[in-house]
Each structure stands twice: as structure tokens, then as C-alpha cells.
């Protein structure tokens, strides 16, 4: 009560490494929301008590008023902690979309809550609509490359793929000489690696 559980939730987020997500803590989240409910009940009962005694809730300053104040402040604190938890997780998710592309690896997706999955889908869609309208691919590497083509080795079986200038059979352990823009999404997902020779 009084914001301790809510702060625990925020601390749990803080202990995870940068840009890493832990599983969405549904349990603690619901407990905090339940606490908000009980704070609200406490608040309402104190305000009703003041009104029954005929006091004006705006100006009277007695024990009940301060009790109601503490309940209100606890509610505001819980709200802040819950919002910060969601906001910071959403920020991490947006970063992951930019770094890893539209399809996130399975280990990450199972840590998201349902609403976060919907958020990711919506954000991804908005980003893609924008990129299609502008005809620009924004999620690629910002540094201009020295060479438009790179040599890659395929790490996992991708199969027959249609690239910008040709189609290639990306079997495991095969080496190819691809355009940077084609290879980049595969490298970021860890399916290929660049060969530096």
C-alpha cells in the first residue's frame, strides 16, 4: 500500500539491462490496480464522513481531510508508477522495431503483453506506411557504406529469395555477394553474417 508495490514494479523495470525486456508483470500490475481501488474506497469514505458532519470539503482541514489527501496522493503515485512502467517498456519496444525489423524473435515476443503486441503492430504499420509514402527505407544503417555490395555467409536456412537484382537460394553455410540493402535485414535478424576479408 501507499505506493510501495507500484515502486517495486518500477524497480523491476530498472533492474533489467538497457534495451532488454523482462516478461510483463501482469500479477504485480493487477495488484497495484487493486490497491488503487482500495485507496479510492478509503478516499470516498473519508469525504463522505466529512460531508455527513456538515463540513465543506474544500476548506475544512481536519484529520479526515488529511487522510483523504494521503489516499489521493497514493493514487496519483500509483498512476505515475504504472504509466512510467508502460511508457518505458513501449520505448524499448519501439527501439527494437527499428533495430530488428518487423518480425521480432520469439524470445522477445513472448515477453510482451497482448496490448504491447497490438502496439507493436500498430507502430510497425504506421512506420511502414510512412516509409512507403516517402519511398525511403529509414531503418537501414545511417553510415554511408564504402561499397554497395558485401560478401555474406548465410547462418540459417532461408531458402529461395527474390532480391532486388536477382533471385538467390540462401541455403545454410552458403556464401553470396549481395547488395548491402538486401543483406541488411537478414544480418540484423542474425540470419547472415558479413564476411570481412
Amino acid at each position, binding site marked *: 500500500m501507499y505506493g510501495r508495490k507500484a515502486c517495486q514494479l518500477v524497480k523491476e523495470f530498472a533492474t533489467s539491462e538497457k534495451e532488454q525486456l523482462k516478461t510483463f508483470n501482469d500479477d504485480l500490475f493487477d495488484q497495484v490496480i487493486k490497491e488503487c481501488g482500495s485507496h479510492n474506497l478509503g478516499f470516498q469514505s473519508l469525504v463522505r464522513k466529512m460531508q455527513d458532519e456538515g463540513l465543506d470539503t474544500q476548506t475544512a482541514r481536519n*484529520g479526515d481531510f488529511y487522510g483523504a489527501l494521503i489516499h489521493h496522493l497514493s493514487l496519483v503515485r500509483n498512476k505515475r508508477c504504472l*504509466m512510467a512502467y508502460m511508457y518505458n517498456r513501449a520505448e524499448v519496444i519501439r527501439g527494437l522495431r527499428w533495430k530488428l525489423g518487423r518480425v521480432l524473435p520469439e524470445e522477445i515476443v513472448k515477453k510482451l503483453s497482448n496490448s504491447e503486441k497490438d502496439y507493436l503492430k500498430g507502430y510497425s504499420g504506421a512506420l511502414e506506411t510512412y516509409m512507403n509514402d516517402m519511398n525511403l527505407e529509414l531503418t537501414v544503417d545511417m553510415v554511408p557504406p564504402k561499397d554497395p555490395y558485401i560478401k555474406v555467409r548465410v547462418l540459417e536456412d532461408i531458402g529461395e529469395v527474390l532480391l532486388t537484382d536477382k533471385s538467390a537460394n540462401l541455403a545454410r553455410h552458403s556464401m553470396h555477394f549481395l547488395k548491402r540493402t538486401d543483406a541488411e535485414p537478414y544480418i540484423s535478424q542474425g540470419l547472415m553474417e558479413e564476411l570481412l576479408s
Partner: protein
Amino acid sequence: MANYYDVDDIITEEENISVIFQKAVNGVGIDPGSEKNCVEQGSKVELPFWLASELCLRNTVVAQVPACFDEKTRLEVQADPACVDLRSRSPYFYEFGCKVAPVTGDRTIGFLLFSAFKSRYKEVLTKAHTAANVANPKFLSRLTKEEVHLYEAAQSSMAAFKKWRKGGPRLQPASVLRMKRKSTN
């Protein structure tokens, strides 16, 4: 408020501070010492900072300077700031001090924080630039969160500088592969 969503700010405000209630309060179980659901006037309670500062504003409580800024810490900081274990006092020593100072009306906290930070800053930077890849765990365990951020920033800029000078592999594989290794953990 730029700090509303800031996680460090939220955790800083959760630090406990001793207050003395000037008015009686009904209907809240925040005082573990009282049997009923209320707080007597004049009772001393440990409250989290976010609650204490709001109640101070409304003159419901009077806040006392927390233990982490007591005489013992001041003497240690005067003697040798670089060796003082500030993290055991509070991992958010400086931020908490900045918030506590106006609430308790103590004007000396500012000087304490400033002199401690000035001396420790030099120590943090020299250790970060010379230690290179070896992390010094004993040293790091004495630093507050803010100082650890500084240390890591200095180390990463040093590493970036060395990489630039060496003329290493292109940007693309490095950051992306590291990301991949991270995401499979």
C-alpha cells in the same frame, strides 16, 4: 514535467525520510506504530519522500534531514571524498540531496553535495580512462547511480575513440550483431 516517466526520478522519490506530524490524520494505516488506522499529532513516522514533500507543502508534517546526510558522512567527505561509499548511504545520493534540501530547509546539504561531487568526478574520470577494459568492481560499488553513468559514458567514449583510431570494421556488423547476441539471451 520532463521527469514524470523517468525511472530514476521515481525510485529517488521512494527513499524514506523521517517526519513529525503536526496535525492528526484519520483513516490511513501509514504509521506502523499506531494500533488504529490513524496518526497522532506529534508522532514520528518514516514516510517515502514523495509523500513527505507534498505533506510538507501543506504544513501537515515537518521533515528532518535523513541519516545519509548526517555528521558522520560529512566528516568522511571532508576527509577523503573519493573513498567514501556513497552507494551504501543512498544509490541516488545527489538527486535525493537536491530534493531534500528545499524540503528540510537545510542549506548545508548543497555544499556537501557539491564538494563531494567535485572531488569524486575527477577520480571517476581518471579511473574510467585508465582502466580500459578491466572493470574495477570495488571502486564501482562505492559510486552512486549518477557516477556510474558518468563512468560508463567515459568508458564507451574511450572505446569509440580507440575503435575510430584503429579504423576497425564498418559500423553495420558490429552494432547489429551485438544486438543479436543480446536478444538471444
